[in-house]
């Protein structure tokens, strides 16, 4: 007869508190990025195939219900990005100074950097407005 009582984790453990749920959504956002990786790959494939294939694919991505799926996935991507910036300062303490910078400072710098990089993408990759 067992004397110790064994532990079993509940299947829905990530619904147990808000932080676990935030974590699970962040992980999902990471997976979503790979889905968009495949979507971009297909975008390049249709670009190669010609205007009609390309336009058909882009139109499909913008037609409901896929449009709404896009919105949800986009929200997950943004959440993934924001949490990533929050965690960088914790996982790789930046040590320009004698003591590592607090993670909030690193988060702030990262968000500013994010805005800057996004602006650069708008101009360098997509040719501005």
């Amino acid at each position, binding site marked *: *007869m067992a*004397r*110790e*009582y*064994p*532990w079993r*984790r509940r299947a829905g*453990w*990530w619904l*147990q*508190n808000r*932080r*676990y749920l935030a*974590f699970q959504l962040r*992980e999902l956002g990471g997976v979503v990025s790979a889905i968009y990786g495949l979507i971009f790959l297909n975008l390049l494939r249709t670009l190669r195939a010609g205007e009609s294939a390309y336009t058909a694919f882009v139109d499909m991505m913008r037609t409901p219900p896929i449009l709404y799926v896009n919105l949800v996935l986009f929200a997950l991507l943004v959440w993934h990005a924001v949490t990533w910036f929050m*965690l960088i300062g*914790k*996982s*790789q*303490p930046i040590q320009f100074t*004698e*003591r590592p910078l607090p993670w909030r400072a690193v988060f702030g710098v990262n968000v500013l950097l994010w805005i800057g990089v996004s602006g650069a993408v708008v101009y360098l990759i997509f040719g501005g407005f």
Partner: protein
Amino acid sequence: MAGRDVVFRVKRYRPESGGKPAYQDYRIPYRDDMVVLDGLNYIKDHVDPTLTYRWSCRMGICGSCGANVNGTPRLTCGTYIRDVHKGTVTVDPLANFPILKDLVVDFDDFLTKLASVTPYIVREESGDLSKEFVQYPEEVEAYRQQSLCINCMLCYAACPVFGASPEFIGPAASALALRYIRDTRDEGADQRLARLNTKSGIWECTFVGECSVVCPKDVDPAAAIQTLKFLATMRHMRRLLMPGAPSR
């Protein structure tokens, strides 16, 4: 503020009588200055002497009174009843560990994991040990945070990865590995990183981060593990690209 009651819903497990763990309710009086451990001691002294739990210092440094209070791993000596109860305080043994009796869990597993990262200063035997080893304040600062760990294992109870995978080396043992790796007196980084770069090592961690949330000493084991992943990857790359070079 006399005359107030609180219900303690405590998980009981008596291995000698068989059966599964089950809750038992105790209604006890409490004051605002009582912590959950005081409530358990009241039950033991006045209501039910068979209730079994660990405690020692009552001041948050011995690390033995951890339990899941209302589902969250806490030191019962540092958790005021007034802060956690909504009529009922639910006390479970620390999650993720096998239960020995009532609130007492088996943590042999943790101790052997801890031992596996050599949580002490490792020196080359040929070195000169007769001289004083000077350490500057900023060098102490580099490992001070992780050195505050009191081995209370709340981080293990909070870790869903450990909950699903008992082999996982887990938060505290990893944090203490980093504590010695960052110590300028230590020369054991290579053997620790070798231990951590295994199937049961740091790679299973998905940075849930709850270990650092529940840590009563702000050791931040979640961040420590990510730093260790970075160090282990750098060591791995060095060994791949420069096979002859020393690992550190």
